[in-house]
């Protein structure tokens, strides 16, 4: 019987010839990741257990990105704990503010995660790296502590669901819309415990940035991982970045799937996810007049260079609506520099946007754009739960960067075609 790409990567890391859905395995990890919210708890557990040394100082990545640059004294303490641990353990991959990026944009950019890897991260959006043809999944702090000691993680082999995208993308439609549309169809637990595998002629043409966005939001359908088999686009991306060997896996033709969904890209407009679930989607053409107070363009979902490019295209020659604050957050230092060289930053400044250093900040209501009671935001982020971006009576509408930029200009949720 054939095997899926997810099953093949898991088998290779468990030292088994093959694995089957439902099976519990212990697998070796290539990279274990933590951030300033989750790593301090893991470090506490590591120390409480009496562990002295991490299993491999080259395979642990720690990045302060959530409440950084430190938003308050408590956050500063958490970062200090992480920084001291990284130094004491001689971790090669600790990246300080000014040299870092939002973890899920930064790790692929720096070639720290590669096709065929098994990556765990104490952050739910770790599933982003599935876009490289890797198995990547979010875990908790205790899991991270255990992995830092043993180099292993326990996993249940997931069943796989195949999503086939046919046809050609409509104007202003990106990976964000494909994944929001998918979550809208299957629900926020539509892929619970399962692998989401994205294939089809649309995927074959899709750039890496859009692929990262799709794999990133697999968790919003409850999935264990999202995955896209590596191809020439993947190889072109990793070739100049990889500093170690990697392995390419593909699903067998006769691999079995729990469900197969087929979507025609002709049916997919830019999507808007209404409060308070990412599955609460509506095509842009059906969205009524909804006035807004703030727009966020950034995050591990949509803070990459092509996201900023689209935003710049829409914003060029326009000003942000007088009642709106537009906050733009390049996801890494390198993306920031590229956006500067390309002239996007100047367009944003001319449009009267705020440009922030890389941070997760507003996405989770941390800092850099927290909402007051009753305020509404359009955001290119990944979650619109109650209170996600601030007060429990504030609202978040999730969109792609083009819709977000158009909305910032119009002062209401708007279609980029209106600009």
């Amino acid at each position: 019987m054939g095997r899926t790409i997810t099953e093949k990567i898991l088998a290779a890391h468990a030292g088994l010839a093959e694995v089957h859905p439902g099976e519990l395995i212990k697998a070796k990890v290539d990279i274990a990741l933590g951030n300033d919210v989750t790593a301090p708890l893991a470090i506490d557990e590591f120390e409480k257990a009496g562990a002295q040394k991490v299993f491999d100082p080259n395979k642990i990545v720690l990045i302060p990105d959530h409440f950084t640059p430190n938003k308050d004294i408590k956050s500063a303490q958490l970062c200090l704990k992480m920084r001291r641990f990284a130094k004491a353990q001689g971790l090669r991959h600790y990246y300080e503010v000014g040299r870092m990026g939002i973890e899920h944009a930064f790790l692929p950019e720096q070639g720290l995660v590669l096709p065929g890897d098994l990556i765990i991260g104490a952050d739910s959006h770790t599933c982003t790296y599935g876009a490289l043809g890797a198995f990547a999944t979010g875990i908790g702090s205790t899991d991270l502590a255990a992995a830092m000691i043993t180099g292993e993680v326990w996993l249940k082999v997931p069943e796989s669901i195949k999503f086939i995208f046919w046809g050609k993308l409509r104007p202003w439609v990106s990976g964000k819309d494909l994944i929001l549309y998918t979550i809208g169809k299957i629900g926020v637990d539509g892929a619970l415990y399962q692998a989401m595998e994205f294939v089809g002629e649309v995927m074959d043409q899709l750039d890496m940035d859009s692929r990262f966005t799709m794999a990133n939001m697999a968790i919003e359908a409850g999935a264990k991982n999202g995955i896209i088999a590596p191809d020439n686009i993947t190889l072109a991306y990793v070739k100049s970045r990889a500093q170690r060997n990697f392995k390419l896996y593909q699903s067998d033709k006769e691999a079995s799937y729990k469900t197969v969904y087929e979507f025609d890209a002709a049916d997919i407009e830019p999507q808007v996810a209404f409060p308070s679930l990412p599955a609460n989607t509506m095509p842009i053409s059906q969205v009524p007049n909804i006035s807004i107070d703030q727009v966020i363009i950034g995050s591990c979902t949509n803070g990459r260079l092509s996201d900023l490019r689209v935003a710049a295209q829409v914003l060029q020659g326009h000003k942000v609506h007088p009642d709106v604050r537009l906050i733009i957050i390049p996801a890494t230092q390198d993306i920031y520099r590229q956006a500067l060289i390309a002239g996007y930053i100047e367009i944003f400044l001319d449009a009267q946007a705020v440009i922030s250093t890389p941070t997760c900040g507003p996405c989770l209501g941390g800092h850099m754009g927290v909402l007051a009671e009753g305020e509404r935001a359009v955001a290119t982020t990944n979650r619109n739960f109650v209170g996600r971006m601030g007060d429990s009576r504030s609202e978040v509408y999730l969109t792609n960067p083009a819709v977000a930029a158009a909305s910032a200009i119009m002062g209401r949720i708007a279609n980029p075609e209106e600009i």
Partner: protein
Amino acid sequence: MKIIEGRVWKFGDNIDTDVIIPARYLNTSDPEELAKHCMEDIDSGFSKKVRKGDLIVAGDNFGCGSSREHAPIAIKAAGIAGIIARSFARIFFRNAINIGLPIIECPEAVDKIESDTLIRIDLSSGLITDIRNGKSYRATPFPPFMQELIAAGGLMNYVMLQQRL
């Protein structure tokens, strides 16, 4: 494995980690501090109303969203002794097992048990009993490896045993 008995707090579907413990409180990992804000965005004062040993009964996809372990820690420190749900989001599921917060999936019990009811859970057999009317429901027991984890008192104790730390 023990038997737990407590009063039920009922919640709906898709209770996410942002409402279990809002990110604005994640600048600390102190369990007592986290417990004070548990569920405050959907049930303000929850932490004050809960009595030690109470139980949560919830719908589908409990704990969806972030990987923050602060969520099960907040619930546990608030005094909640266990959770029954129709289903759990997978990272929350792992985190709860890893920190030793008992959780059980049993859709039938969730559909039938009402808020404020006193119930008993036998964690080893997965038997849930509504003390008021005597009705009982059976949950699927955990696979052997997870039972080992739970018996060891969570993942770190298990790792310490394995590594002889």
